């Protein structure tokens, strides 16, 4: 059986029919939306079964304020190095009580990436051994990548900087 995107997709939906909420394929990579509570189970299966996604490439957060009950998301990129196929997993959660299982016991690489996601978005990772902010000041007290903290608008008119002609 050839290790195609469809093969991976079928294998996962067969094993976890309840957990897969949505799938899509963009630019040659499939994305699977997983139910939040089942994420760790799915990743564990993908790592230890014959699917062989043994490499955690990337882990990052995202904020969609316009999606009710799904404002915050965590996006995982896994890689099967032998078959050379990547896959993207997503999970979404409401902003209140944003919490998802940690992957640190499966991938040591997840440690700092989860700390970074916590730092940027305030997403808590249940079971993380050392969940502190990592890049920002620990005493800052807010999570700056959330969309409610906009950067300055480059086109605003009330700024008096005629000298610089902006």
């Amino acid at each position, binding site marked *: 059986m050839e290790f195609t995107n469809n093969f991976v997709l079928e294998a996962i939906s067969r094993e976890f029919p309840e957990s897969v909420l949505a799938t899509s394929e*963009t*630019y040659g*990579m499939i*994305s699977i939306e997983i139910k939040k509570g089942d994420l760790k189970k799915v990743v564990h299966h993908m790592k230890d079964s014959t699917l062989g996604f*043994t*490499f*955690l*490439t*990337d882990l*990052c957060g*995202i*904020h969609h304020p316009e999606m009710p009950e799904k404002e915050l998301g965590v*996006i995982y*990129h896994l890689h099967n*190095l032998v078959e*050379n196929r*990547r896959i*993207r997993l997503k999970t979404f959660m409401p902003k209140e009580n944003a919490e998802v299982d940690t992957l640190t016991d499966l*991938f*040591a*690489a997840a*440690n*700092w*990436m989860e700390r*970074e996601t916590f730092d*940027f978005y305030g997403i808590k990772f249940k079971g993380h051994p*050392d969940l*502190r902010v*990592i*890049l*920002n000041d620990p005493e800052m007290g807010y999570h*700056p*990548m959330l969309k409610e903290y*906009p*950067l*300055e*608008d*480059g086109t605003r008119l009330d700024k008096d900087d005629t000298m610089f002609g902006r």
Partner: protein
Amino acid sequence: MKDNALSNILNQYDAQEQIDGQLYTLNFGPTHPATHGIFQNILTMDGEKILHSEQTVGYIHRAFEKISERRNFTQITTLTDRMNYCSSPINNLGWHMTVEKLIGVTVPKRVDYMRVIMMELARIADHLVCNAVTGVDTGALTGFTYLFQDREKIYDMYEQVCGARLTTNMGRIGGFERDLNPKFHELLQDFLKTFPKRFTDFCNLLERNRIFMDRTIGAGGISAERALNYGFTGPNLRAAGVDYDVRVSEPYSSYQDFDFNIPVGTAGDTYDRFMVRQQEIWESLKIIDQAYKNLPEGPFHADVPDFYLPEKADVYNNMEALIYHFKIVMGETEVPKGEVYHAVEGGNGELGFYLVSDGGRTPYRLHFRRPCFIYYQAFPEMITGSVISDAVVTLSSLNVIAGELDA
């Protein structure tokens, strides 16, 4: 802040009264000359032996991911070259390729080959710095002083291509802003002629040097399994024996046209990392040689009027060019909706760009997969139980670049 592992160690030592009072804390960094960047290692030491270490990073965090949510696609290029500033062109061109993948542009073959030449020059510069500095940290300053002259020559070539040396902002979305000029050809030919000889001298100086080998063999080793678990990529992973290279596994920018080898090590220690980088410099030279010999004729940029600035003469005489010029400069180009992950082989490993676009003028979310940030977590595991001088050479051979660490 003392975590459990540390208090366990301390408790154990309190029980052993004969060595009570020998433990001390050493701050290695943030501005220690041997960290080669701004990050802190708090080491708990017993004599020269490291019992525990804790890392503090984020001293030069500049919130690039947040800033990019307010910048148009052209302006983000300048942010990327401040990540791994030892090989800025790879970051720049990797970002351009990500955007091209999103908007679906195919660039001419000549652009691919020019990009390959620039990226391999950048890789050589990056590896030269790393290896020369590893030499310095073991006490061999000579190689460093020689190799920095060759790095200077590479920077002269950057200057001919984009006008800048360190933070290059090289290329444009769709290609290059100008074709290779005669001076560049002259410099590159000279470099290809003289560099192998000079680099051989450096190899002879260190590769079989007894003192250097004694200092580096067995220092800071990591197994292939642990390295994969820690998300290692690039030379550090290959030194542990895994032949993963993005240039081969997912060829971008016509890397499939070139014939080159992927050097791998066995032990994953400092010496293997050093040797893998040494061999990669030779392989990069081979690639540059092939790309330069077979450099195709043709345009040096793709036809993407939405992103590529028109000729200045056209802007003054052609209505359409004026409109495009205005839209690009004011950042009013809308991009298609979509999400894309694109990875290039950076100086330190897989440099990934995860870009989510909601169809606006800026990225909705842009995440940089920075190899340094991911593999630096393994540093405590690699140095615990060894001596401080091993930690220094391990750190320099890992090539942790603070700009990439913190983004």
